[in-house]
């Protein structure tokens, strides 16, 4: 079963819910990278 189908089944998500979740994951990754990248670049300097 595709990941998104499995998520829909497991967490009662709709198609819109899956789209929103993908966006949420994307921006969480960006936030984590920005915060950690920021620290790393400061230390590296």
């Amino acid at each position: 079963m595709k990941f998104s189908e499995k998520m829909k089944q497991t967490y009662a998500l709709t198609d819109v819910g899956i789209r929103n979740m993908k966006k949420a994951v994307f921006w969480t990754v960006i936030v984590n990278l920005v915060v950690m990248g920021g620290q790393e670049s400061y230390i590296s300097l």
Partner: protein
Amino acid sequence: MKDFMEALTGKADLPKLANYLLLLGIFLVVSLVTHIQQYTNTYGSVYAKVKDVRMNLAESLRKLPLSFFGKRDIADLTETIMGDVNTLEHVWSHVLGYLYGAYISTAVIAIGLLFMSWQLTIAALWAVPVAFMLLFGTRKLVMSRSARTRKAALTVSDSMQEMLECAREIRVTNKEADFLKQFNEKVDTHERVTLSGELFTGIFVNGASVIMRLGMATTILAGTSMILAGTADFMILFMFLMVITRIYAPFDQSLALIAEMFMSQVSAGRIREIYDTPVATGSEDFEPKGHDIVFDKVSFAYEDEGVLKNVSFTAKEGEVTALVGASGSGKSTCARLAARLWDARSGKITLGGVDVQTVDPEVLLRDYSVVFQDVTLFDDTVMENIRLGKRDASDAEVLAAAKAANCDEFIRNLPQGYLTNIGENGSKLSGGERQRISIARALLKNAPVVILDEATASLDVENETRVQGALTRLLAGKTVLVIAHRMRTIENADKVVVMNDGRVVEIGSPADLKTRKTEFAHMLQLQTESANWVI
């Protein structure tokens, strides 16, 4: 940072602050923008959609066949729409995006760290998969505990609902103390099950959290060993320590929520059950030729219990067809199948030559007025309760229907007349008044098919006379299906269909059936004997 460290240890001058402040400013702006985006796409989008989820569930429930409501009671469904959606709302907004985002960002950062020092990377991150393996390994146990907690909560709400619905019976049978004791036991059980579930989950969540903290210790140990061995410098260890605190932060938070994520799968299963149950559908084009209702070898069963067996009869337009028989003989089921409140298992029911199962239930019900023995009224004004029969009816039409249903007099005596709020399910009205309001609704709707399901069974003589007057006006020229226990009320029916144990045993006019001396004549005799009984 290195320049600052060297300045602090006296090896060099302080570096220029401007570059650092500029970098700090850029970092703050980027961080702010990305945090806002993250918030909007996690919490914001979920909160905006939760109302839609509840509305979709309510809409699905509205379209489900009535057989579904035999499997899940009202308290259970209310808990799904409110409680289960609440549980999932928190998981959708606080857990899923956060957790999967943490997986991906950690993987990306781990790859970057590997290039700096693979030994320190392993020392820092080994604990993450171990901690999560521990939690995922106990997932089924957590879910079964969660199902038990949910079941205990439902038992409490069922019990509460029963106490409220049966308050009168409990009081007159002096069972208040017994019910309170039982209720107290159920609340205690719920509390015990919830606490043990929380404790069980807490042990594994905290265990995983402790394992994760070990990663910090192993990083320090490995880092200091490497510094002492001269294979790494202090700045690398310092950077690893800074980074792993950031890596652990989302995981730490997720660990606390991951148990909730597992538990939410129980709620999701209950919601999916509603979504996955097939709804009654059909064509919206419905053009019947007349309004004869024909039952052709119809059989029906609730689950495995056969209720109707091979039932065939015709209710003609302009005639009154009465369904009679003992309780449980299948009369009410016939009426409900005719209006497609349920679907027959086999055979065919047609209205005006069109198979009712091919018609959208909402479109079909436009041709039906149904008056039940148990009238349902809404916590609204009398005017709006009658207007339910025809949403676009004018006030004048509502008043005309109320007059025809013999309601006008008692409505005008209410404190605010037609604008009086009648309370939850019309609690401020008597049984006869409630019944007449439901007939006014049916009169206003003026549908070509009328189903009367024991419409006058619980009324006193005065109210029954008034209701009968209203009914006479409602039934003129319609296809009428009457379910009645009192033989007197169907004396003028055009046709009587006698049912026994889910089968049609006799069909004919009342006068004809009386002379046959079979089932109908037997029922008449029993009612006559009953009417002559005195205390």
